[in-house]
């Protein structure tokens, strides 16, 4: 058994106690995701969950035969919030295929753009999307007693963030009216300005190319970036303690909340932010330069680091179809039988994948989603790794590996220290992210810790950006302003690119034949997190995490919102055109009266 332990069994005859609950589409995420559940309201548990994605576009199909240099322009369009991560990954992939190594300055500029993306995206998701699940209005509608307690609870770090009680923090997160909610929305804009300084446009960049960037590197470029960055650093000095207070309070106010969205620690991180001193984009040296990344690649199983080698990571990827609307490719040709180091490459690896759509009715006992089931084969099991929305996996792998140490950030082997310099009104500050454990000392991957890690990683990204700005400015001051290197597209090649999209692992695999794309398979984080039950019956991470979620919401089925389930799902920062439904017994459809004058958009 590779997943978390089985959800409570649904013995025959007990189905009558289960209530169907369906969310489709889930709001406050990117894309369309449906969650279909069966809830046992007596036991206050989710008994069964299916997650479904209701969209198919066919990138791997329509990219065939196209010019490989178009790959990053095309694949950016896969995602509307982290498209630049795709463009970046595709450019890395192309660099390997074309054998080109960009000038250092070009790499620092990409790193600055990608750091800004983390700063922007985690911020808007945390405060304007997931934060709403913890706002006063939501808590009042789901757990009035908890709000009462929040109003009476002094915030331990009030001096750092300015909110006297936890209730005040919750009010500040109220959509639209909340002061912090509006501030965060503004911060999401200034961080996108930082992004656009480096990559031209958000979210589909204009200035990225294989071989480097077209961004014109001047002193002004980095001054414009740095001034905005320092304001962000000051902002994060308030945000980290504020979220610590809020999340710690949830554990106190709702004993057992550790179990919401909890699943076995099965985390993947493909590493991000290359170090141009070491990264030569060759496959042969990939394990070495991967370990020099500013976020360390790694697979963490049950709290233990299994590998930090990008070659191991690459060779372990398997694409299973399970309950998705595709035909298998067992009888199709293999594109790559061995990697450049001579290691055998599996038929189910993305290099050898063929995407063959077979649209069908949605049937939860058969096929029910357009999402396939990527798994990581450790030699024994097909592990349903998740990314926890990105940050928790990145921090966990980086903390255990102990490889990152550049002043602003230090990995200690059990934690990550983030050192932020003095800002306009606040002194030098160090934050330390520690590997989360439950009360019994067991490693803990759950909704609250995924969210907490997100806030810490915002500070981590800012710290990295400080370092990158210094490096880039040093190049410019030394007169090295070249940001792009020329290259030739070979007739035959195969290659891969790895990075961390905002929400987690991202890989692109390409095969070139006759100078054209013969095969291209991108694997973003959400197929990992939102995957369906695979060929072996192992549920995907959303399904798994929701199936283990206890219900703390006080509402009866008739006015049930499913806030605990939504918190579990949103903690993964879902980002794909996909859907999630919930199953509240009896299949009863309630008609709730809504005021037609209601403004449901609270933004």
């Amino acid at each position: 058994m590779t997943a978390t332990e089985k959800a409570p069994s649904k013995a025959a005859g007990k189905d009558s106690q289960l209530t169907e609950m369906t969310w489709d589409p889930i709001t406050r995420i990117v894309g369309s995701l449906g969650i279909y559940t069966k809830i046992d309201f007596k036991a206050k548990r989710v008994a069964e969950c299916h997650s479904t994605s209701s969209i198919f576009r066919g990138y791997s199909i329509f990219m065939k035969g196209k010019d490989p240099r178009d790959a990053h322009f095309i694949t950016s369009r896969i995602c509307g919030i982290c498209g630049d991560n795709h463009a970046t990954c595709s450019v890395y992939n192309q660099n390997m295929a074309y054998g080109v190594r960009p000038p250092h300055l070009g790499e620092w500029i990409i790193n600055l753009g990608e750091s800004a993306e983390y700063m922007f995206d985690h911020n808007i998701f945390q405060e304007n999307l997931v934060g709403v699940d913890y706002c006063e209005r939501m808590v009042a509608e789901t757990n009035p007693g908890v709000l009462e307690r929040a109003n009476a609870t002094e915030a331990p770090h009030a001096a750092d963030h300015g909110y006297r009680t936890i209730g005040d923090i919750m009010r500040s997160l109220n959509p639209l009216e909340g002061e912090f909610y509006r501030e965060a929305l503004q911060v999401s804009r200034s961080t996108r300005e930082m992004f656009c300084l480096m990559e031209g446009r958000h979210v589909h960049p204009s200035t990225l190319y294989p071989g480097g960037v077209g961004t014109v590197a001047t002193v002004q470029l980095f001054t414009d970036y740095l001034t905005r960055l320092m304001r962000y650093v000051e902002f994060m000095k308030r945000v980290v303690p504020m979220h610590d207070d809020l999340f710690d309070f949830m554990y106190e106010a709702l004993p057992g909340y550790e179990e919401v969205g909890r699943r076995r620690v099965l985390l993947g991180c493909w590493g991000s932010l290359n170090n141009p001193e070491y990264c030569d984009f060759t496959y042969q040296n990939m394990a070495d330069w991967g370990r020099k990344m500013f976020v360390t690649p790694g697979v963490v199983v049950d709290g233990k680091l299994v590998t930090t080698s990008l070659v191991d990571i690459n060779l372990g990827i398997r694409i299973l179809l399970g309950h998705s609307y595709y035909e298998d490719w067992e009888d199709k040709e293999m594109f790559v039988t061995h990697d450049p180091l001579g290691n055998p490459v599996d038929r189910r690896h993305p290099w050898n994948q063929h995407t063959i759509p077979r649209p069908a009715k949605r049937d939860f006992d058969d096929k029910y989603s357009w999402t396939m089931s990527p798994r990581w084969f450790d030699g024994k099991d097909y592990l349903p790794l998740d990314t926890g929305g990105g940050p928790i996996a990145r921090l966990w792998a980086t903390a255990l590996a102990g490889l990152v140490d550049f002043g602003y950030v230090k990995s200690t082997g059990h934690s990550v220290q983030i050192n932020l310099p003095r800002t306009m009104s606040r002194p030098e500050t160090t934050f330390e992210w520690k590997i989360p454990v439950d009360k019994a000392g067991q490693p803990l991957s759950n909704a609250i810790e995924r969210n907490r890690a997100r806030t810490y990683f915002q500070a981590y990204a800012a710290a990295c950006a400080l370092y990158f700005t210094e490096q880039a400015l040093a190049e410019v001051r030394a007169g090295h302003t070249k940001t792009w290197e020329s290259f030739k597209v070979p007739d035959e090649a195969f290659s891969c690119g790895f990075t961390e999209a905002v929400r987690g692992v991202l890989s692109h695999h390409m095969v070139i034949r006759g100078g054209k794309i013969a095969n291209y398979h991108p694997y973003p984080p959400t197929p990992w997190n939102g995957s369906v039950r695979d060929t072996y019956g192992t549920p995907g991470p959303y399904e798994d995490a929701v199936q283990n979620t206890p219900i703390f919401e006080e509402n009866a089925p008739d006015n049930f919102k499913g806030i605990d389930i939504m918190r579990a799902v949103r903690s993964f920062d879902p980002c794909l055109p996909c859907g999630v439904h919930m199953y509240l017994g009896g299949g009863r459809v309630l008609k709730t009266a809504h005021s037609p004058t209601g403004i449901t958009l609270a933004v």
Partner: protein
Amino acid sequence: MTQESQATQDPVIHILWMNGGLGCDGDSVALTAATQPSIEEIVLGALPGLPKVAVHWPLIDFECGPEQGADNFIEWWHKADRGELEPFVLVVEGSIPNEAIKSEGYWCGFGNNPATGQPMTTSEWLDRLAPKATAILAVGTCATYGGIHAMAGNPTGAMGVPDYLGWDWKSKAGLPIVCVPGCPIQPDNLSETILYLLYQVTGQAPMIPLDDALRPRWLFEATVHQGCDRAGYYEEGTFAGEYDSPTCLVKLGCWGPVVKCNVPKRGWINGVGGCPNVGGICIACTMPGFPDKFMPFMDEPPGSRVSATASGMYGSVIRSLRGITARTVDKEPKWRVKGTELRTGYQKTW
């Protein structure tokens, strides 16, 4: 949540935002970057004369209850379908796949059809809601003209909203489909168009001026080149041979001379960023012919070569040369049409 205090006049205008097409949500995300006006200014009525609006937008909506419980988000769509929302503006994001080229299943769905328990397809929502909508706003190049997901060899037969409903389609209030292209949309271009439409549907502004491709004229009448601050290099005949050169990128794949878009002039966000003005070739992402008529993106555009060589000459000669290319690229490829046949070149496997 009512916003009586912000209300300046009745009735409430509902905005139903459907991101269920073949897209990436990039236009939703881009709109959160808008500052002229910002979404909070529109919703809170921060500009004079703004009507009270109720925006039902998946990206950021407070409501997210289950179908069977409280605050079911999709219920607003069913209300509109039953004729219980009046008036409403339907915003469509993502291209419309052709669901007629297969016998079962769906390419994309948005919520469920209560009658079948199966996903309600985006095209079915369009069929149901189009006759009832006061206006339809197609946002982003996917929804307007098909975009990336409608490129040659695609398996879904994707097309834009005007391809699906008809280019001559008019709403019950007499409005054509309003298209704001861009991949994604420039944030302020969209928020400004929404603002214009809110003024129009409340009788405070005349019919929105649109061009042949249904784009707001004031946003899309000039070319990228006309607004590009590197055009001076073009005039001097200084063309970049490498992508990190600060000069004109036309010989490296920039389609600026024939592309209708204001981004180099307006910047991407608060005047920061853009495309050729900051070192990114224009790949023509606002155009009906995008992407097919511009690929491979990194090759020199044939039309621009003529113009570039003759860049010392000005006036009607150059303008008419460009006109020929511009008319071609301002049209979609021929396979983006309705019908039971898939014409994209992909061999069906189902």
